[in-house]
Every structure is written in structure tokens, then in C-alpha cells.
């Protein structure tokens, strides 16, 4: 009544709505596609690659593509793991240190047991990561302290342990079996083997998050933790498992790191956590939880890596590269925020009909 000057969608009443709903339904598949958070990032990636290739024709030669994929691989796996945690409205900042511990552990293993089967090394690395992730998860769920603070603490603790363990020691690729390093150099139909591993991981995690009940619970928890408790979802257990799974994937990334890079030591993975969180956020995983996909996080990781290579390829000063990455993060957060303010406003006015 007092609202006559405002648009009032709900005031249209029930009869008018049944017709609208039918149209909604036809439009929904298309609009879901357009609204998906991954679309802007993926388009940005395509535009970036095309423009760079036009300016510098060397950018898309086979070796260039292979380098691009190799550089992105480890970040992709870690972003996939991180997105599990962020979707539950938590965050794991200790992943850089976890990766360092596992990578150095991998180096030590090959050093101590030169003939150890590679599969066993992978298993040990992933279990090691799971244990570290489990420590984070237990602290977050039992202490009820924000994950940001807990994992900031474990970031330093894990790094401190690695410093004490490694000291000045570094292990080099030469200390490891050739077949292990081959994982990062051999290709199958043009893709490096470790990149294929990353793709497999992303697809598996994405299927879990999309079509397994406990995966869907993670979205519910991040969407509204209080409602999830009222609903009877085992919130603590699910969050703990998300941290453990992230640990496993970070462990896997740690082993691959040792395969890909020449040296592993006390500073391995230092600061990597920020790239990982940035990749997930740029890829449309909402930092407030509840939405985003693993595919998005993976595309975000690919975009961040590509942007660095592309800026180098078109000879942009290295100092500007980080600023541009920062702009990208801000842009994706602002896009998110504007969308949610609009939705909230719409909701308030549409509820107004009786007042």
C-alpha cells in the first residue's frame, strides 16, 4: 500500500505466478549457465590466451603450453583441495607449510631408501598430508576458533618443524630416481603426466562435491552453519573430513612438487597459501562459503598461472604482474558482493507487501 511507487514482485500475487514459473523453467538451464561463477573466469582465461598469442606467437607453441600446464598443475590440485575447505566457510592457510613438509619428506625418503617404490612414496606423502590436515581440522572443530586463526598458527608451527628438520639440507632432483622426475617431463598426447594426475583429481573431487550426499552437506554447512546444525547435519565431522581431504591433496601436491622442481628444502612452498586461496576466490569459490565449484577453483589456478606467463610473454614489468593479480582478486570479490547486495535488497522489498 505505502509501497505503490516501488516495484513489488511478490505483490503480483499467486495467479500471475503460475505462468511466470513455466517461463522460468525454460529459461533456467540457460540462466544457470550464464550466472555460473565459472563463466567469467573461463572467458577471461580464453581472452587472455588469445590476446597473448596474437602479440607473441611463441606463447602457444608446444613447449610453451607444456610449461604453462606444468606450472599450473600443483596450484590446481591445491586449489581443488582448498575449495573443499572454503566451501564449508573455513580456510586452510597452512597448506604452503604442509606442501613444504611433504616435499622435503619425499626428498628424504628417496635419500634414505633409494629403491623405494614410487607408489609407496605417493601413499606416504598423502597420509602425511592427511595427518597434518587432520590436526587443523581437529583444532578448528574442537576449539571452535575461526579456521583463519588456527591455520595461521599451524602455518608457522609446520614451517618451524620443517626448518628444524631440514636445517640447511636440500635434496636435488639428482638424488631421486629418474622415473620419478619423468612424471613431470614425459607427456601423454601432449599433456605432462602430473597434469593428467591433476585433471583426474579435479574431476574426482568435482563429482564428489556435485553428486555425493556428504559433498552436498559441505555446501549446506557453508551456506548457513546454524541451519545445518538445526537440520541435523554432522557439521563437525564433515568439516574435519574436508580438512583431511585438503591435507591429502596438499600431500599429493607435495610429492609432485618434488618431482617437478629441482630442489626441496626448508623454504619450499613458502607463501604458496596465498596463491592457493587467490586461485579459489578468483575461480568463484565464495570466501563466505556455500558456493563455488572445484572446476572454478581449478580454472582460477590456471588463470593465475597463465596471467603470470602471459605478462612475461608480452614483456610487462615483473613488478606490475602482482598488482594485476591483486586487481583480479578484488574484481572477483566486488562482482560477488554487488550481486549479493542486489539479491538482499530485492528480498527486503519483496517481503514488504503487507506493511
Amino acid at each position, binding site marked *: 500500500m505505502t509501497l505503490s511507487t516501488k516495484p513489488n514482485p*511478490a505483490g503480483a500475487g*499467486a495467479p500471475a505466478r503460475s505462468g511466470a*514459473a513455466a517461463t522460468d523453467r525454460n529459461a533456467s538451464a540457460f540462466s544457470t549457465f550464464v550466472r555460473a561463477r565459472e563463466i567469467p573466469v573461463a572467458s577471461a582465461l580464453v581472452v587472455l590466451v588469445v590476446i597473448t598469442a596474437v602479440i607473441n606467437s611463441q606463447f602457444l607453441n608446444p613447449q610453451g603450453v607444456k610449461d604453462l600446464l606444468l606450472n599450473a598443475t600443483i596450484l590446481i590440485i591445491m586449489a581443488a583441495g582448498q575449495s573443499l575447505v572454503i566451501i564449508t566457510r573455513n580456510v586452510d592457510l597452512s597448506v604452503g607449510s604442509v606442501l613444504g613438509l611433504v616435499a622435503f619428506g619425499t626428498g628424504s625418503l628417496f635419500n634414505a631408501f633409494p629403491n623405494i617404490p614410487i607408489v609407496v612414496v605417493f601413499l606416504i606423502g598423502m597420509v602425511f598430508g592427511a595427518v597434518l590436515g587432520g590436526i587443523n581440522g581437529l583444532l578448528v572443530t574442537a576449539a571452535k576458533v575461526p579456521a583463519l586463526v588456527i591455520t595461521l598458527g599451524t602455518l608457522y608451527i609446520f614451517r618451524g618443524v620443517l626448518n628444524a628438520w631440514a636445517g640447511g639440507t636440500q635434496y636435488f632432483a639428482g638424488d631421486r630416481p629418474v622415473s620419478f622426475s619423468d612424471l613431470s617431463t614425459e607427456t601423454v598426447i601432449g599433456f605432462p603426466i602430473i597434469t593428467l594426475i591433476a585433471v583426474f583429481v579435479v574431476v574426482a573431487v568435482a563429482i564428489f562435491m556435485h553428486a555425493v550426499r556428504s559433498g552436498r*552437506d559441505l555446501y549446506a554447512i557453508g551456506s548457513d552453519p546454524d541451519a545445518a546444525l538445526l537440520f541435523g547435519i554432522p557439521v563437525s565431522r564433515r568439516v574435519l573430513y574436508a580438512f583431511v581431504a585438503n591435507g591429502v591433496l596438499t600431500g599429493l601436491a607435495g610429492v609432485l612438487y618434488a618431482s617437478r622442481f629441482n630442489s626441496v628444502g626448508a623454504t619450499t612452498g613458502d607463501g604458496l597459501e596465498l596463491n592457493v586461496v587467490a586461485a579459489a576466490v578468483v575461480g568463484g569459490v565464495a570466501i563466505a562459503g556455500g558456493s563455488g565449484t572445484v572446476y572454478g577453483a581449478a580454472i582460477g589456478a590456471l588463470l593465475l598461472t597463465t596471467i603470470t606467463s602471459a605478462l612475461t610473454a608480452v614483456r610487462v614489468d615483473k613488478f606490475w604482474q602482482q598488482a594485476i593479480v591483486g586487481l583480479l582478486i578484488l574484481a572477483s570479490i566486488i562482482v560477488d558482493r554487488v550481486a549479493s547486495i542486489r539479491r538482499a535488497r530485492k528480498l527486503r522489498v519483496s517481503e514488504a507487501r503487507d506493511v
Partner: protein
Amino acid sequence: MAEQQAPGESVLSLVGAAKSFGPVVALADGTIDIRPGEIHALVGENGAGKSTLVKILAGVHQPDSGDFRVAGELVSFKSPAESKAVGVSVIYQEPTLFPDLTVAENIFIGRQPKGRSGLISRREMRRQARELFARLGVPIDPDRVAEGLSIADQQIIEIAKAISLDAKVLVMDEPTAALSGVEVERLFGVARGLRDKGAGILFISHRFDEVFDLTDRITVMRDGRYISTHDTHTVTIDEIVREMVGRELGALFPKVEAPIGDTVLKVSGLARAGVFSNITFDVKAGEIVALSGLVGAGRTEVARAIFGIDPYDRGTVTLSGRTLAGHSPQAAIAAGIGMVPEDRRKQGLVMDLSVAKNATLTLRKKLARFGLISGKRERAAAEEWSKVLQVKTGSQDYAVSTLSGGNQQKVVIAKWLATEPKLLIVDEPTRGIDVGTKSEVHRLISDLAGRGIAILMISSELPEVLGMADRVLVMHEGRITAELPRSEATAERIMLAATATLEEAAR
């Protein structure tokens, strides 16, 4: 239906359940008995313990004592999942949907239909959701996200959830509070359908017309206790209201008659889309005006708009003849308004700071010299007000969190008195304060009015309103539905206006 039921056949019964949170007794005797095939109303004032009782039924809270049976079996739920598993479904006052998930997923979360591969089959989920909505006769798109749905549609989704769970008991906590007439009718149609299929429904509402229209029996609660249960067709609204408020007012409220002066606050035509509309009233110097009504009627929102915390779309606020700029607490404070908020722990005090620092928060500019605050002057100023208000603390340097609720409230009031306000807004001044200290806070408020301060008091406690106020404004769903001078204010009239059965209030 009712005569075929022997007492032992209740689908859910709770007898003598008690629940305390620390020293606060939320529920002293929670008793309810729901039979299959009935709609049972639970009524009571704000704070009567209804919500606590609902949360016990839902498995959110575990009762400290009492006998709780579902279908004759003793139960003790450790989580909402267990309650749901035996067929108790609860629709809360605030719908608890997951805003980022689709409508279909909100209905089926945790038990999504699986395809042959063992993965969730979205097509099947969508089909079942459509089927549910077809049964309910509502065209909601199962694929849209829940965010942005109207409250009515959210309620429907909660009901669809309950139906798909095959609930034996459906608890609805004020489901109609935000619905329009057509939507309420649709909801009632669904409720009656479920009842006829043998479900037991517990319906909590403040709207008596609905309670009498829909339900078979009514249970009344008051002060955390079970009072009575009636067959709906054997009682009248008046009898129920009397049981809800029936309390001796006694000499608990030392209201002092104060000389009433000029108009201090004048609010005219204040409106905020979706929150309140057409709010017009005034408060005079030395007068205590109570803003009464049910939780969610928009009282706090009006106060926040007057004080400038929230913006408003229309209308004016005038203080002593000067129109206030909207949406600016600084302007409100400068003009002489003080606000004692409902949630004093979060909004009224800085819990970790000392008593002295809290009491002088509003005086920082006056106490500072060259931008630095002198601790000595701060303590002296705090001392002065603490003495006037009789704040009981070991030292001015103790953290304010160490004080009792009543003394904390005095510190909040002291903070504002130091600014020499013309108008003091007090929102639920005695919430969470024990009975003894309550009357001290009341005496204080009465004193302040005696000094010529205009007081706007928001209160959900009827005895407090009746005992303290010179004038009572009653709000319902964002509008003022009654204005009663002290001589005409009775619990019954306020309650009726608060539930918007206006014609009867006028009689």
C-alpha cells in the same frame, strides 16, 4: 476425532520438562500432549518458554528433567537428526533454508535420491520436488536457489520437506507471522490435509483468530510453565488471554508521578519499506511512553530508525522542535537522544573495558585534553554517576563483564546520563535481569522521568508496561494499532491490539 482418543494414544507427549541455561530458567514445566489427527495450539506471551519447548521437541536442546515420549516410547534426542528420524519435523519461525542451494536440494538434503551409479540423481530429485509442489498446489521452480524466495515460499518449502519426510508430528513455530491472507489460507489448507491423514500438528501463533479457526485444542503457557489445555470450541479469546497474562502486578513497580512538560520527541509518518510504516507519536518531558507489542512487530526497528542507526524512507523525527537528520547516530546524540539497546552485552557495553571507561564512553571529547584522556578525570566522572545510580562494583577498574546484569544495565544508563539527554530510549531494560534488581532498574527509569527526561521504553513484559508507562503504544506488524493512556491500559487490551484483533480492543 478427539473423543475416540484415549490419553495414552498421544503421538507425542512431554510432561514436566525443565531446562535451564546457567542460572536462567527457560522452561520450568514444559508439558504438551499431541494426538494423531489433531491441530494443537500453543500460546503464551513472549518469553513464556514456547521456543525452548519447541527446541526440546526438535532435539536441539536436551531437557534437564521430564518425561518425553513419541508414540508411547521414551525418547531422549541428542541431536535434531534423531528427532527427525522418529518422525518429528519442525518448522521454525525463521525458515532455515540454505540460501545457496536449489529448492529441490533444500528439500532433500542428506537424503537425495540416488541413481543406479550411486550418485545423486538430480533429475529424480527434481521430479519428486515437482510432485510435492503439485500436491501442495504451488508453482515453485525446484531448480532456483533458495536465496531471495519470499518468506511464504520458504515456509512452503519447509512444509514440503516435512511431507516428504512423512512426519508424524509437525511443529510450526509462528508460521504465519510474515504471511499475507491468501498465503495463510493456503498454509492452513495444507495443515488440515496433513491432519486428516493422521499427523499431529503443533501450531504456535499469536493470532487468536487463526488459533480459533484452525486448531482442535489449545495449551496455554506462562512464565515457563504449563497452565492449561482446552478444547478450542469450549473456550473464548478472553479466557485464554486472561490465562496468558494472569499475574499479580503487585507493588513491583515504584512508578512515581512526574510532572509532564513540553513535547520532546515528535515522530510523524515514519516508514521503512518492509519493516514499519506510518509511525506517528510523541513523547513529552517527564513522560514514560511504552512501545509494546510482540517480538518482531517492528518496535526495535522504529527505535533504531529514530536514533539514526537504520535509515528510513519517509517521515520525520523532531526533537524539541528541531528536525533530525536521518541515519546519523551522531546527530541524534548531539541533539540529546540516548539509547539503551536490547542487547547490552553486544551493543551497550564494551565488555572487556573497565566500568569507568564504559561509563564515560560518551564523554571522551569532554574528558580529553589535547586529544589525550586523563585517567584521573575519567574515574572522577565515572565515580559521580556510579554513585547516583548505585552501581555495585568492587572497583571502577574492574572489567564491566564482571558485574551482574542489573549493574551492567546501570552502567549503560550512566553512560547516557552523562550526556544529559532530553530523550532516553530503553529497549527491553530488564531482559535477563533477576527479579530483585529489576525493580531497581524500574525505580531508576522512574527517577529519570522525574528529572524531566522523556522516556521511550520498549518492553515485551506486560507487567512492566502496565506498571511503568504513562502511555502505551501497541505495535503489530510494523504499525501502531493502539494508543492507550495509563488509565485505560489493561493486559487484555494490549494483548488484543498486539495480535491485531482491533475491533475487540476498541470494545
